[in-house]
Protein backbone atom coordinates (compact mmCIF):
# COMPACT_ATOMS: atom_id res chain seq x y z
CA UNK A 1 0.00 0.00 0.00
CA UNK A 2 1.43 3.41 -0.89
CA UNK A 3 2.28 5.84 1.86
CA UNK A 4 -0.40 8.37 2.86
CA UNK A 5 0.45 11.91 1.78
CA UNK A 6 -2.42 13.58 3.56
CA UNK A 7 -5.08 12.58 6.01
CA UNK A 8 -8.26 14.32 6.95
CA UNK A 9 -11.85 14.06 5.99
CA UNK A 10 -14.01 14.46 2.98
CA UNK A 11 -17.27 16.09 3.88
CA UNK A 12 -20.48 16.77 2.06
CA UNK A 13 -23.47 18.07 3.88
CA UNK A 14 -23.18 16.60 7.37
CA UNK A 15 -21.53 13.40 6.15
CA UNK A 16 -17.85 13.15 7.00
CA UNK A 17 -15.66 10.42 5.58
CA UNK A 18 -12.22 10.22 7.24
CA UNK A 19 -9.80 9.58 4.40
CA UNK A 20 -6.13 9.28 3.61
CA UNK A 21 -4.69 10.38 0.32
CA UNK A 22 -2.22 8.14 -1.52
CA UNK A 23 -0.49 8.73 -4.84
CA UNK A 24 -2.18 7.44 -8.00
CA UNK A 25 1.07 7.81 -9.95
CA UNK A 26 4.29 5.96 -9.28
CA UNK A 27 7.64 7.36 -10.23
CA UNK A 28 9.33 4.94 -12.63
CA UNK A 29 11.94 7.44 -13.81
CA UNK A 30 15.58 6.56 -13.51
CA UNK A 31 17.24 8.88 -11.05
CA UNK A 32 20.82 9.98 -11.31
CA UNK A 33 23.19 11.38 -8.79
CA UNK A 34 25.74 14.03 -9.68
CA UNK A 35 29.30 12.70 -9.63
CA UNK A 36 32.65 14.38 -9.97
CA UNK A 37 33.76 13.22 -13.43
CA UNK A 38 37.44 13.16 -12.39
CA UNK A 39 37.21 10.68 -9.54
CA UNK A 40 33.65 9.35 -9.71
CA UNK A 41 32.94 10.54 -6.19
CA UNK A 42 29.38 11.65 -5.41
CA UNK A 43 28.83 15.38 -5.24
CA UNK A 44 27.28 16.81 -2.10
CA UNK A 45 25.24 19.95 -2.30
CA UNK A 46 26.05 22.34 0.50
CA UNK A 47 24.37 25.60 1.42
CA UNK A 48 26.75 28.51 1.83
CA UNK A 49 26.15 32.07 2.98
CA UNK A 50 26.77 34.44 0.10
CA UNK A 51 28.09 37.10 2.48
CA UNK A 52 30.32 35.23 4.90
CA UNK A 53 31.40 32.37 2.64
CA UNK A 54 30.74 29.68 5.29
CA UNK A 55 28.59 26.57 5.14
CA UNK A 56 25.14 27.08 6.68
CA UNK A 57 23.21 24.36 8.54
CA UNK A 58 19.49 23.76 7.90
CA UNK A 59 18.56 25.21 11.29
CA UNK A 60 20.19 28.51 10.36
CA UNK A 61 18.14 28.98 7.19
CA UNK A 62 15.10 31.24 6.89
CA UNK A 63 12.65 31.78 4.11
CA UNK A 64 12.63 35.26 2.59
CA UNK A 65 10.35 37.01 0.17
CA UNK A 66 11.98 39.63 -1.99
CA UNK A 67 10.10 42.95 -2.16
CA UNK A 68 9.91 45.15 -5.23
CA UNK A 69 12.16 47.74 -3.60
CA UNK A 70 14.92 45.14 -3.17
CA UNK A 71 14.26 44.66 0.55
CA UNK A 72 13.11 41.32 1.94
CA UNK A 73 10.65 39.92 4.45
CA UNK A 74 11.52 36.82 6.50
CA UNK A 75 8.64 34.36 6.89
CA UNK A 76 8.79 31.43 9.33
CA UNK A 77 7.18 27.98 8.98
CA UNK A 78 5.01 28.73 12.03
CA UNK A 79 3.71 31.91 10.46
CA UNK A 80 2.82 30.10 7.26
CA UNK A 81 1.04 27.40 9.26
CA UNK A 82 -0.87 30.10 11.12
CA UNK A 83 -2.48 31.39 7.95
CA UNK A 84 -3.55 27.96 6.72
CA UNK A 85 -7.34 27.97 6.77
CA UNK A 86 -9.23 26.23 9.61
CA UNK A 87 -10.58 23.63 7.21
CA UNK A 88 -7.05 22.50 6.60
CA UNK A 89 -7.85 18.87 7.47
CA UNK A 90 -11.08 18.78 5.51
CA UNK A 91 -11.92 18.54 1.86
CA UNK A 92 -15.27 20.30 1.91
CA UNK A 93 -17.33 19.41 -1.13
CA UNK A 94 -18.72 22.69 -2.38
CA UNK A 95 -20.58 21.43 -5.41
CA UNK A 96 -21.10 18.52 -7.75
CA UNK A 97 -20.62 18.92 -11.48
CA UNK A 98 -21.17 16.78 -14.52
CA UNK A 99 -17.82 15.15 -15.14
CA UNK A 100 -18.11 15.73 -18.89
CA UNK A 101 -18.35 19.46 -18.26
CA UNK A 102 -14.84 19.74 -16.78
CA UNK A 103 -12.24 20.05 -19.50
CA UNK A 104 -9.16 17.89 -18.84
CA UNK A 105 -7.00 21.02 -19.15
CA UNK A 106 -7.86 21.74 -15.48
CA UNK A 107 -6.71 18.35 -14.19
CA UNK A 108 -3.32 18.42 -12.53
CA UNK A 109 -2.08 15.63 -10.28
CA UNK A 110 -4.06 12.45 -9.44
CA UNK A 111 -4.36 10.73 -6.06
CA UNK A 112 -6.65 8.17 -4.49
CA UNK A 113 -8.65 8.78 -1.36
CA UNK A 114 -9.05 5.73 0.87
CA UNK A 115 -11.08 5.26 4.06
CA UNK A 116 -8.80 6.27 6.94
CA UNK A 117 -10.05 3.70 9.36
CA UNK A 118 -11.42 0.18 9.14
CA UNK A 119 -14.64 1.05 10.93
CA UNK A 120 -17.85 0.16 9.20
CA UNK A 121 -19.31 3.66 9.24
CA UNK A 122 -16.38 5.06 7.22
CA UNK A 123 -16.39 2.12 4.81
CA UNK A 124 -20.10 2.58 4.12
CA UNK A 125 -19.95 6.34 3.71
CA UNK A 126 -17.00 5.88 1.32
CA UNK A 127 -18.84 3.23 -0.64
CA UNK A 128 -21.97 5.34 -0.81
CA UNK A 129 -20.14 8.36 -2.21
CA UNK A 130 -18.26 6.19 -4.74
CA UNK A 131 -21.48 4.51 -5.90
CA UNK A 132 -23.52 7.65 -6.15
CA UNK A 133 -20.91 9.50 -8.21
CA UNK A 134 -20.45 6.52 -10.52
CA UNK A 135 -24.21 6.27 -11.04
CA UNK A 136 -24.73 9.95 -11.72
CA UNK A 137 -21.44 10.52 -13.64
CA UNK A 138 -20.84 13.48 -11.46
CA UNK A 139 -17.75 14.66 -9.66
CA UNK A 140 -17.31 16.67 -6.49
CA UNK A 141 -15.39 19.93 -6.30
CA UNK A 142 -13.75 21.21 -3.17
CA UNK A 143 -10.68 22.93 -1.81
CA UNK A 144 -8.11 21.74 0.68
CA UNK A 145 -4.66 22.54 1.96
CA UNK A 146 -1.69 20.23 1.64
CA UNK A 147 1.91 21.07 2.40
CA UNK A 148 1.25 24.80 2.72
CA UNK A 149 -0.57 25.19 -0.57
CA UNK A 150 -4.25 25.48 -1.22
CA UNK A 151 -5.65 23.18 -3.89
CA UNK A 152 -8.81 22.97 -5.86
CA UNK A 153 -9.70 19.30 -6.21
CA UNK A 154 -12.09 17.20 -8.19
CA UNK A 155 -13.14 13.92 -6.60
CA UNK A 156 -14.73 11.24 -8.72
CA UNK A 157 -15.42 7.56 -8.81
CA UNK A 158 -12.70 5.58 -10.56
CA UNK A 159 -12.88 1.77 -10.74
CA UNK A 160 -14.61 1.54 -7.37
CA UNK A 161 -12.30 3.97 -5.60
CA UNK A 162 -12.43 7.70 -5.03
CA UNK A 163 -9.88 9.49 -7.17
CA UNK A 164 -8.90 13.01 -6.32
CA UNK A 165 -7.16 15.18 -8.89
CA UNK A 166 -5.75 18.52 -7.94
CA UNK A 167 -6.83 21.13 -10.44
CA UNK A 168 -5.43 24.28 -11.88
CA UNK A 169 -7.10 27.46 -10.75
CA UNK A 170 -8.72 29.45 -13.54
CA UNK A 171 -5.95 32.05 -13.47
CA UNK A 172 -3.30 29.34 -13.89
CA UNK A 173 -4.69 28.40 -17.31
CA UNK A 174 -3.56 31.00 -19.82
CA UNK A 175 -6.17 32.40 -22.16
CA UNK A 176 -3.89 31.82 -25.14
CA UNK A 177 -4.73 35.19 -26.67
CA UNK A 178 -1.06 35.74 -27.31
CA UNK A 179 -0.67 32.47 -29.23
CA UNK A 180 -0.33 33.46 -32.85
CA UNK A 181 -2.09 31.50 -35.53
CA UNK A 182 -4.65 29.36 -33.78
CA UNK A 183 -7.47 28.13 -36.02
CA UNK A 184 -8.34 31.08 -38.22
CA UNK A 185 -11.48 31.89 -40.15
CA UNK A 186 -9.53 32.88 -43.23
CA UNK A 187 -7.98 29.40 -43.46
CA UNK A 188 -11.15 27.38 -43.41
CA UNK A 189 -10.66 24.08 -45.22
CA UNK A 190 -12.78 23.13 -48.22
CA UNK A 191 -15.43 20.44 -47.83
CA UNK A 192 -13.27 18.18 -50.00
CA UNK A 193 -10.18 18.66 -47.80
CA UNK A 194 -12.16 18.08 -44.64
CA UNK A 195 -13.66 14.91 -46.05
CA UNK A 196 -10.23 13.59 -47.04
CA UNK A 197 -8.73 14.51 -43.63
CA UNK A 198 -11.63 12.75 -41.89
CA UNK A 199 -10.96 9.66 -44.03
CA UNK A 200 -7.25 9.67 -43.05
CA UNK A 201 -8.16 10.04 -39.37
CA UNK A 202 -10.72 7.27 -39.66
CA UNK A 203 -8.14 5.00 -41.28
CA UNK A 204 -5.66 5.64 -38.46
CA UNK A 205 -8.25 5.31 -35.71
CA UNK A 206 -8.30 2.62 -33.09
CA UNK A 207 -9.30 1.91 -29.55
CA UNK A 208 -7.37 3.72 -26.82
CA UNK A 209 -5.27 0.97 -25.26
CA UNK A 210 -2.95 2.81 -22.86
CA UNK A 211 -0.95 -0.33 -22.08
CA UNK A 212 0.20 -0.58 -25.70
CA UNK A 213 2.13 2.66 -25.46
CA UNK A 214 5.40 1.95 -23.68
CA UNK A 215 7.84 4.46 -22.28
CA UNK A 216 10.62 3.97 -24.84
CA UNK A 217 12.70 6.72 -23.25
CA UNK A 218 12.82 4.88 -19.94
CA UNK A 219 13.78 1.66 -21.75
CA UNK A 220 16.50 3.32 -23.80
CA UNK A 221 17.89 5.04 -20.73
CA UNK A 222 18.10 1.68 -18.92
CA UNK A 223 19.80 0.29 -21.99
CA UNK A 224 22.30 3.17 -22.06
CA UNK A 225 23.14 2.52 -18.39
CA UNK A 226 23.51 -1.24 -19.01
CA UNK A 227 25.78 -0.75 -22.01
CA UNK A 228 27.88 1.83 -20.23
CA UNK A 229 28.27 -0.58 -17.32
CA UNK A 230 29.74 -3.10 -19.74
CA UNK A 231 32.18 -0.44 -20.90
CA UNK A 232 30.60 0.37 -24.25
CA UNK A 233 30.53 3.90 -25.62
CA UNK A 234 27.22 5.58 -26.30
CA UNK A 235 26.45 7.65 -29.34
CA UNK A 236 23.34 9.67 -30.09
CA UNK A 237 21.10 8.07 -32.73
CA UNK A 238 20.94 9.64 -36.17
CA UNK A 239 17.84 11.71 -36.77
CA UNK A 240 15.15 10.00 -38.80
CA UNK A 241 14.71 11.21 -42.35
CA UNK A 242 12.58 14.30 -42.58
CA UNK A 243 9.05 13.97 -43.91
CA UNK A 244 8.98 14.71 -47.64
CA UNK A 245 7.70 18.21 -48.22
CA UNK A 246 4.25 18.22 -49.76
CA UNK A 247 3.18 21.83 -49.65
CA UNK A 248 -0.10 21.12 -51.45
CA UNK A 249 -2.52 19.96 -48.77
CA UNK A 250 -4.96 18.28 -51.10
CA UNK A 251 -2.15 16.41 -52.85
CA UNK A 252 -0.81 15.21 -49.48
CA UNK A 253 -4.26 14.04 -48.39
CA UNK A 254 -4.87 12.19 -51.64
CA UNK A 255 -1.44 10.57 -51.65
CA UNK A 256 -1.94 9.46 -48.02
CA UNK A 257 -5.28 7.90 -48.85
CA UNK A 258 -3.84 6.22 -51.95
CA UNK A 259 -0.93 4.78 -49.87
CA UNK A 260 -3.37 3.52 -47.29
CA UNK A 261 -5.49 1.78 -49.86
CA UNK A 262 -2.38 0.03 -51.10
CA UNK A 263 -1.53 -0.85 -47.50
CA UNK A 264 1.84 0.89 -47.86
CA UNK A 265 1.76 2.69 -44.58
CA UNK A 266 0.16 0.82 -41.78
CA UNK A 267 1.10 3.47 -39.27
CA UNK A 268 -0.77 1.79 -36.47
CA UNK A 269 1.93 -0.81 -36.12
CA UNK A 270 4.72 1.72 -35.80
CA UNK A 271 4.20 2.39 -32.13
CA UNK A 272 5.24 -1.17 -31.34
CA UNK A 273 8.77 -0.72 -32.59
CA UNK A 274 11.62 0.79 -30.64
Amino acid at each position, binding site marked *: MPRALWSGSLSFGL*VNVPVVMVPAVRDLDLHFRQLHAKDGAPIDVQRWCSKEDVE*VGWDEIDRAFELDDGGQVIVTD*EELEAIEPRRTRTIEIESF*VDLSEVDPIYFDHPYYLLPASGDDGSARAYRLLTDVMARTERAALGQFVMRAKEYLAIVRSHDGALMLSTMLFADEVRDGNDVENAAQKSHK*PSAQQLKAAAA*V*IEELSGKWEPGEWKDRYRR*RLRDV*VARKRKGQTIKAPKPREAV*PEMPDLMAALEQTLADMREGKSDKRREKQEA
Partner: protein
Amino acid sequence: MARSIWNGTITFGLIAVPIRVHSATESHTIHFHQVHAKDGARIKQKRICSKERKEVPYEEVAMGYEVRGGEFVMLEKDEIDAAAGDRSRTIALEQFVERTEVDPVFYDRVYYLGAGDDGQDAYRLLHDALERSGRAGIGRWVFHNREYLVAVRPLNKFLVLHTMRFADELVSADKLEIPSPSRRPSDRELEMAEQLVSSLQKAFRPSAFKDSYRDRVRDLIARKAKGEEIELPAPEKAEAPGDLAAALEASLGKRRS
Protein backbone atom coordinates in the same frame (compact mmCIF):
# COMPACT_ATOMS: atom_id res chain seq x y z
CA MET B 1 3.40 37.41 -28.87
CA ALA B 2 4.28 34.79 -26.35
CA ARG B 3 7.54 33.09 -27.18
CA SER B 4 7.15 29.54 -28.34
CA ILE B 5 9.12 26.89 -26.50
CA TRP B 6 9.41 24.45 -29.41
CA ASN B 7 8.91 24.60 -33.18
CA GLY B 8 8.35 21.59 -35.37
CA THR B 9 5.85 19.68 -37.44
CA ILE B 10 2.93 17.45 -36.61
CA THR B 11 2.31 14.82 -39.26
CA PHE B 12 -0.53 12.45 -39.94
CA GLY B 13 -0.09 10.37 -43.04
CA LEU B 14 1.81 12.62 -45.46
CA ILE B 15 0.12 15.75 -44.18
CA ALA B 16 2.48 18.10 -42.40
CA VAL B 17 1.24 20.71 -39.94
CA PRO B 18 3.96 23.20 -38.94
CA ILE B 19 3.36 24.17 -35.32
CA ARG B 20 4.75 26.21 -32.45
CA VAL B 21 4.34 25.05 -28.88
CA HIS B 22 3.40 27.56 -26.14
CA SER B 23 2.81 27.07 -22.43
CA ALA B 24 -0.86 26.86 -21.56
CA THR B 25 -0.39 27.20 -17.83
CA GLU B 26 1.36 29.52 -15.42
CA SER B 27 2.03 29.00 -11.76
CA HIS B 28 1.20 31.79 -9.31
CA THR B 29 2.78 30.09 -6.34
CA ILE B 30 4.68 32.55 -4.19
CA HIS B 31 8.34 31.68 -4.09
CA PHE B 32 10.79 32.34 -1.32
CA HIS B 33 14.55 32.49 -1.22
CA GLN B 34 16.64 30.74 1.35
CA VAL B 35 18.60 33.18 3.48
CA HIS B 36 21.09 32.86 6.30
CA ALA B 37 19.07 33.64 9.48
CA LYS B 38 21.98 35.46 11.07
CA ASP B 39 22.60 38.11 8.42
CA GLY B 40 19.72 37.72 5.93
CA ALA B 41 22.22 37.03 3.12
CA ARG B 42 21.07 34.82 0.25
CA ILE B 43 22.03 31.14 0.48
CA LYS B 44 23.87 29.76 -2.51
CA GLN B 45 24.38 26.13 -3.26
CA LYS B 46 27.82 24.68 -3.76
CA ARG B 47 28.66 21.37 -5.36
CA ILE B 48 31.33 19.70 -3.26
CA CYS B 49 33.24 16.57 -4.23
CA SER B 50 32.69 14.10 -1.39
CA LYS B 51 36.24 12.77 -1.80
CA GLU B 52 38.31 15.91 -2.33
CA ARG B 53 36.03 18.21 -0.26
CA LYS B 54 36.48 20.85 -2.96
CA GLU B 55 33.95 22.75 -5.03
CA VAL B 56 33.20 21.14 -8.43
CA PRO B 57 32.60 23.37 -11.47
CA TYR B 58 29.60 22.43 -13.64
CA GLU B 59 31.81 21.20 -16.52
CA GLU B 60 33.23 18.51 -14.23
CA VAL B 61 29.84 17.11 -13.25
CA ALA B 62 28.89 13.68 -14.58
CA MET B 63 25.77 11.67 -13.85
CA GLY B 64 25.80 8.50 -11.78
CA TYR B 65 23.25 5.71 -11.76
CA GLU B 66 23.46 3.72 -8.55
CA VAL B 67 23.50 0.00 -9.38
CA ARG B 68 24.01 -1.10 -5.80
CA GLY B 69 24.80 0.63 -2.53
CA GLY B 70 27.42 3.27 -3.33
CA GLU B 71 28.40 1.78 -6.71
CA PHE B 72 27.65 4.03 -9.66
CA VAL B 73 27.70 3.68 -13.44
CA MET B 74 29.05 7.04 -14.56
CA LEU B 75 27.63 8.68 -17.67
CA GLU B 76 28.36 11.94 -19.42
CA LYS B 77 25.36 14.23 -19.77
CA ASP B 78 25.28 13.74 -23.56
CA GLU B 79 25.24 9.96 -23.12
CA ILE B 80 22.03 10.35 -21.15
CA ASP B 81 20.69 12.69 -23.82
CA ALA B 82 21.29 9.92 -26.37
CA ALA B 83 18.31 8.08 -24.90
CA ALA B 84 15.98 10.91 -25.92
CA GLY B 85 15.43 9.36 -29.31
CA ASP B 86 14.71 10.77 -32.69
CA ARG B 87 15.31 14.48 -32.92
CA SER B 88 13.75 15.14 -36.29
CA ARG B 89 11.44 17.78 -34.81
CA THR B 90 8.33 15.98 -35.92
CA ILE B 91 5.44 14.59 -33.93
CA ALA B 92 3.89 11.81 -36.01
CA LEU B 93 0.32 11.15 -34.97
CA GLU B 94 0.31 7.36 -35.15
CA GLN B 95 -3.19 6.71 -33.99
CA PHE B 96 -6.44 8.56 -33.44
CA VAL B 97 -8.71 7.66 -30.53
CA GLU B 98 -12.10 8.77 -29.23
CA ARG B 99 -11.43 11.66 -26.88
CA THR B 100 -14.01 10.43 -24.37
CA GLU B 101 -12.12 7.12 -24.11
CA VAL B 102 -9.04 8.83 -22.70
CA ASP B 103 -9.48 9.32 -18.96
CA PRO B 104 -8.05 12.68 -17.85
CA VAL B 105 -5.77 10.81 -15.46
CA PHE B 106 -3.52 10.13 -18.47
CA TYR B 107 -3.03 13.81 -19.21
CA ASP B 108 0.00 15.34 -17.57
CA ARG B 109 1.17 18.75 -18.81
CA VAL B 110 -0.64 20.85 -21.38
CA TYR B 111 0.49 23.23 -24.10
CA TYR B 112 -1.20 25.42 -26.68
CA LEU B 113 -0.22 24.95 -30.29
CA GLY B 114 -0.10 27.75 -32.83
CA ALA B 115 0.42 27.29 -36.55
CA GLY B 116 4.01 27.64 -37.74
CA ASP B 117 5.10 29.47 -40.88
CA ASP B 118 2.70 28.85 -43.77
CA GLY B 119 0.92 26.27 -41.65
CA GLN B 120 -2.42 27.97 -41.11
CA ASP B 121 -4.35 25.91 -43.65
CA ALA B 122 -3.03 22.58 -42.40
CA TYR B 123 -3.51 23.64 -38.75
CA ARG B 124 -7.11 24.61 -39.31
CA LEU B 125 -7.71 21.40 -41.25
CA LEU B 126 -6.39 19.17 -38.45
CA HIS B 127 -8.26 21.23 -35.86
CA ASP B 128 -11.58 21.00 -37.69
CA ALA B 129 -11.21 17.35 -38.62
CA LEU B 130 -10.47 16.43 -34.98
CA GLU B 131 -13.33 18.54 -33.72
CA ARG B 132 -15.78 16.87 -36.08
CA SER B 133 -14.56 13.34 -35.45
CA GLY B 134 -14.43 13.71 -31.66
CA ARG B 135 -10.93 12.23 -31.73
CA ALA B 136 -7.47 13.01 -30.43
CA GLY B 137 -4.20 12.13 -32.15
CA ILE B 138 -1.58 10.13 -30.24
CA GLY B 139 2.12 10.44 -31.00
CA ARG B 140 5.61 10.85 -29.56
CA TRP B 141 7.37 14.12 -28.88
CA VAL B 142 11.05 14.63 -28.13
CA PHE B 143 11.35 17.71 -25.95
CA HIS B 144 14.20 18.73 -23.63
CA ASN B 145 16.12 15.50 -24.22
CA ARG B 146 13.24 13.27 -23.35
CA GLU B 147 10.60 11.45 -25.34
CA TYR B 148 6.98 11.94 -24.32
CA LEU B 149 3.77 10.27 -25.32
CA VAL B 150 1.40 13.07 -26.36
CA ALA B 151 -2.21 13.62 -27.28
CA VAL B 152 -3.26 16.41 -29.62
CA ARG B 153 -6.85 17.58 -29.42
CA PRO B 154 -8.92 20.64 -30.28
CA LEU B 155 -10.00 23.02 -27.51
CA ASN B 156 -12.00 26.05 -28.63
CA LYS B 157 -9.96 27.66 -31.40
CA PHE B 158 -6.74 25.90 -30.40
CA LEU B 159 -5.07 22.62 -30.86
CA VAL B 160 -3.70 21.64 -27.47
CA LEU B 161 -1.00 19.09 -26.75
CA HIS B 162 -0.93 17.03 -23.57
CA THR B 163 2.07 15.05 -22.45
CA MET B 164 0.75 11.77 -21.12
CA ARG B 165 1.40 9.38 -18.28
CA PHE B 166 2.18 5.82 -19.24
CA ALA B 167 -0.20 3.08 -18.12
CA ASP B 168 2.43 1.46 -15.89
CA GLU B 169 2.92 4.75 -14.03
CA LEU B 170 -0.66 4.72 -12.81
CA VAL B 171 -1.59 2.85 -9.67
CA SER B 172 -4.50 0.55 -10.43
CA ALA B 173 -7.50 0.88 -8.14
CA ASP B 174 -7.64 -2.87 -7.55
CA LYS B 175 -4.19 -2.72 -5.91
CA LEU B 176 -5.68 -0.57 -3.17
CA GLU B 177 -6.96 -2.09 0.04
CA ILE B 178 -10.41 -0.58 0.35
CA PRO B 179 -12.33 -2.05 3.29
CA SER B 180 -15.72 -3.46 2.32
CA PRO B 181 -18.65 -2.34 4.45
CA SER B 182 -20.63 -5.05 6.29
CA ARG B 183 -23.54 -4.27 4.01
CA ARG B 184 -23.94 -2.23 0.83
CA PRO B 185 -25.51 1.21 1.08
CA SER B 186 -29.28 0.75 1.12
CA ASP B 187 -31.53 2.02 -1.67
CA ARG B 188 -32.83 4.67 0.68
CA GLU B 189 -29.29 5.87 1.46
CA LEU B 190 -28.40 5.94 -2.22
CA GLU B 191 -31.55 7.84 -3.00
CA MET B 192 -30.87 10.40 -0.31
CA ALA B 193 -27.24 10.73 -1.37
CA GLU B 194 -28.37 11.31 -4.92
CA GLN B 195 -30.76 14.00 -3.75
CA LEU B 196 -27.97 15.60 -1.80
CA VAL B 197 -25.67 15.46 -4.83
CA SER B 198 -28.39 17.00 -6.99
CA SER B 199 -29.04 19.76 -4.49
CA LEU B 200 -25.34 20.66 -4.62
CA GLN B 201 -25.18 20.38 -8.41
CA LYS B 202 -23.77 23.41 -10.20
CA ALA B 203 -22.41 24.29 -13.59
CA PHE B 204 -18.60 24.12 -13.62
CA ARG B 205 -17.27 27.66 -13.40
CA PRO B 206 -13.52 27.49 -12.88
CA SER B 207 -13.26 31.17 -11.99
CA ALA B 208 -15.54 30.59 -8.96
CA PHE B 209 -12.56 29.06 -7.13
CA LYS B 210 -9.78 31.20 -5.78
CA ASP B 211 -6.48 30.28 -4.25
CA SER B 212 -7.20 32.18 -1.05
CA TYR B 213 -4.10 30.72 0.60
CA ARG B 214 -1.95 32.47 -2.00
CA ASP B 215 -3.73 35.74 -1.08
CA ARG B 216 -3.13 35.12 2.60
CA VAL B 217 0.58 34.50 1.99
CA ARG B 218 0.72 37.83 0.16
CA ASP B 219 -1.14 39.48 3.02
CA LEU B 220 1.20 37.88 5.57
CA ILE B 221 4.19 39.25 3.69
CA ALA B 222 2.63 42.71 3.59
CA ARG B 223 1.89 42.63 7.33
CA LYS B 224 5.36 41.41 8.17
CA ALA B 225 6.85 44.09 5.99
CA LYS B 226 5.07 46.57 8.31
CA GLY B 227 6.45 44.75 11.37
CA GLU B 228 3.21 43.10 12.62
CA GLU B 229 3.02 39.96 14.81
CA ILE B 230 1.20 36.83 13.58
CA GLU B 231 -1.09 34.68 15.82
CA LEU B 232 -1.58 30.88 15.81
CA PRO B 233 -5.05 29.18 15.70
CA ALA B 234 -5.77 25.48 16.52
CA PRO B 235 -6.90 22.87 13.93
CA GLU B 236 -10.23 20.99 14.13
CA LYS B 237 -10.95 17.26 13.85
CA ALA B 238 -13.77 15.51 12.00
CA GLU B 239 -15.29 12.14 12.91
CA ALA B 240 -17.05 9.46 10.87
CA PRO B 241 -20.81 9.59 11.10
CA GLY B 242 -22.22 6.80 13.30
CA ASP B 243 -25.54 6.81 11.57
CA LEU B 244 -25.12 7.38 7.83
CA ALA B 245 -28.83 7.65 7.07
CA ALA B 246 -29.37 10.16 9.86
CA ALA B 247 -26.45 12.29 8.65
CA LEU B 248 -27.82 12.23 5.08
CA GLU B 249 -31.28 13.12 6.31
CA ALA B 250 -29.98 15.94 8.44
CA SER B 251 -27.92 17.24 5.49
CA LEU B 252 -30.95 17.26 3.23
CA GLY B 253 -33.04 18.88 5.97
CA LYS B 254 -30.37 21.49 6.44
CA ARG B 255 -30.42 22.35 2.78
CA ARG B 256 -34.21 22.48 2.56
CA SER B 257 -34.65 24.82 5.51
